[in-house]
């Protein structure tokens, strides 16, 4: 039998309460029975004393005999008190123990006042004594004492107390058994949680609690399960991140090492080949630089260290600058780069540099994944928002992959050869920057037909006439 500490505390608290209740109840019941018996005894003795007084007052010669006979039946002792205060036994009776009668009470009774009191002999036996004056005119027997033994009552009370103690013990054991079950059942989920959190502290985040109750303990269990799931997801994401980052960094470094070694060992046949290898080395170093730069930005964003320089931005101007920067790339791929910018576009709050980077990432992606057709940048003012969209006629994104394209290192193109290049961080950065500037990103795509990214910026309430740009 294992005793856990929370169960022990719970059980001990309830037991202490239980003992207090039992002791109080026991004392009350004991007092109730004692009072009941004593009242009964007093009433009976009073009644007998009244009868005997009536008999004595009749002055009949046979009254003494009758009183003695009744006294025997009633199991009481009767004493006479004469005018001198001397206590006498009934005629025909042997000498009784007169120490039970007190002189003070005798004086009082001789003065004509009835008395009643409890007393006890040398052995501890209790007696109930009632004294009544007898009104007989000039009689020589002015009072009578009735002494009733309380032995039977005391025996009954003692027996009752023993049975009460037995009942108390029974109630205590009954409560103890029930409390053991109850404290165990109540503490089981808490102990499960403690074991679960211990497992979590040791790195085992796969374990889950099975708590069915819907009370506060159930809710706590659910919270612990949610915490374990979050930690597990964090660990999986971190593992995937390290695995991907190491691969992404190793690939360009391997290229750089390989081609640099070929050049160093003079294994090239012609200047053309040499130029080609140098070009590859340059492209890979640029890719590596982009990757490191993107990672740096992302880590700063996730740590909350990236501070945006918020200002009122003219999106038209940013679009024109970004389009100008990627124009050459589009021309090299013989793609038509078109812009459709509405006239009345309100200024929006944002960081100029980051907004331009967002647009450049989207445009570079569009050009990268489009072989023929066009790339269109559209800036539209709607009723409650300004929408900037970048559409292409490229290869498109499968519908089932759309929810994941903003995750770090997620690439639709899974091939290791990577025909289209890229770091897999561009869209993740776009999403984070747009979120930080209070916008949202939407994407629509159809395989083989093209993709449209929409950046939606709600109009701020604090938009005065000065904020309008025509």
């Amino acid at each position, binding site marked *: 039998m294992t005793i856990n500490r929370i169960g022990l505390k719970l059980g001990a608290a309830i037991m202490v309460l239980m003992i207090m209740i039992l002791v109080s109840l026991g004392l009350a019941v004991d007092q109730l029975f004692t009072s009941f018996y004593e009242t009964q005894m007093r009433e009976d003795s009073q009644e007998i004393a009244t009868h005997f007084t009536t008999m004595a007052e009749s002055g009949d010669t046979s009254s003494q005999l009758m009183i003695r006979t009744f006294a025997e039946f009633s199991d009481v002792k009767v004493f006479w008190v004469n005018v001198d205060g001397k206590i006498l036994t009934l005629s025909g009776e042997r000498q009784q123990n007169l120490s039970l009668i007190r002189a003070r009470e005798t004086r009082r009774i001789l003065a004509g006042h009835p008395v009643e009191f409890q007393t006890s002999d040398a052995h501890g036996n209790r007696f109930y004594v009632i004294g009544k004056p007898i009104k007989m005119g000039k009689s020589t027997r002015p009072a009578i004492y009735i002494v009733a033994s309380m032995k039977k009552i005391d025996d009954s009370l003692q027996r009752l107390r023993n049975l009460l103690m037995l009942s108390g013990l*029974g109630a205590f*054991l009954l*409560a*103890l*058994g029930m409390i053991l079950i109850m404290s165990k059942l109540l503490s089981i989920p808490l102990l499960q949680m403690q074991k679960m959190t211990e497992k979590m502290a040791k790195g085992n985040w796969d374990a889950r609690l099975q708590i069915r109750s819907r009370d506060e303990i159930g809710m706590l269990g659910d919270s612990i399960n949610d915490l374990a799931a979050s930690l597990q997801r964090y660990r999986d994401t971190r593992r995937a991140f390290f695995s991907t980052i190491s691969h992404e960094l190793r690939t360009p470094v391997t290229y750089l090492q390989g081609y640099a070694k070929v050049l160093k060992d003079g294994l090239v046949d012609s200047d053309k080949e040499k130029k080609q290898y140098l070009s590859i080395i340059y492209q890979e170093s640029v890719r590596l630089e982009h990757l490191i730069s993107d990672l740096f930005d992302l880590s700063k964003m996730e740590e909350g260290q990236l501070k945006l320089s918020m200002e009122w931005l003219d999106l038209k101007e940013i679009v024109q600058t970004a389009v100008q920067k990627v124009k050459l790339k589009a021309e090299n791929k013989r793609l038509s780069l078109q812009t459709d910018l509405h006239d009345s576009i309100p200024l929006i709050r944002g960081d100029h540099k980051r907004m331009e980077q967002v647009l450049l990432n989207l445009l570079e992606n569009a050009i990268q994944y489009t072989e023929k057709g066009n790339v269109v940048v559209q800036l539209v003012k709607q009723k409650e928002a300004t929408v900037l969209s970048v559409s292409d006629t490229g290869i498109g994104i499968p519908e089932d992959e759309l929810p994941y394209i903003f995750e770090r290192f997620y690439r639709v193109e899974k091939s290791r050869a990577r025909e289209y290049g890229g770091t897999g961080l561009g869209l993740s950065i776009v999403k984070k920057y747009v979120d930080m500037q209070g916008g949202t990103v939407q994407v629509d795509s159809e395989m083989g037909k093209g993709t449209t990214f929409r950046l939606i910026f709600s109009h701020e309430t604090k938009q005065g006439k000065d904020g309008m740009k025509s």
Partner: protein
Amino acid sequence: MKKIDWFFSLFLIIIGLTCLLFSANAFGHESLLSFGRTFFKACMWVACPVILFVSLSLWFHYRNKR
């Protein structure tokens, strides 16, 4: 809860009930038959609410399952 926990708890409950019933019955009627009669009565009084509670629990359980 382990079997030993159940056993120990039930043992205490039975001993407690026996003490209670014995003390309830002992004042004046010390016969075994009288004790057995009181014990049966007490068991019936305990069994009635337990049966009622179990029946209601089962009814709620199956009603929610549907």
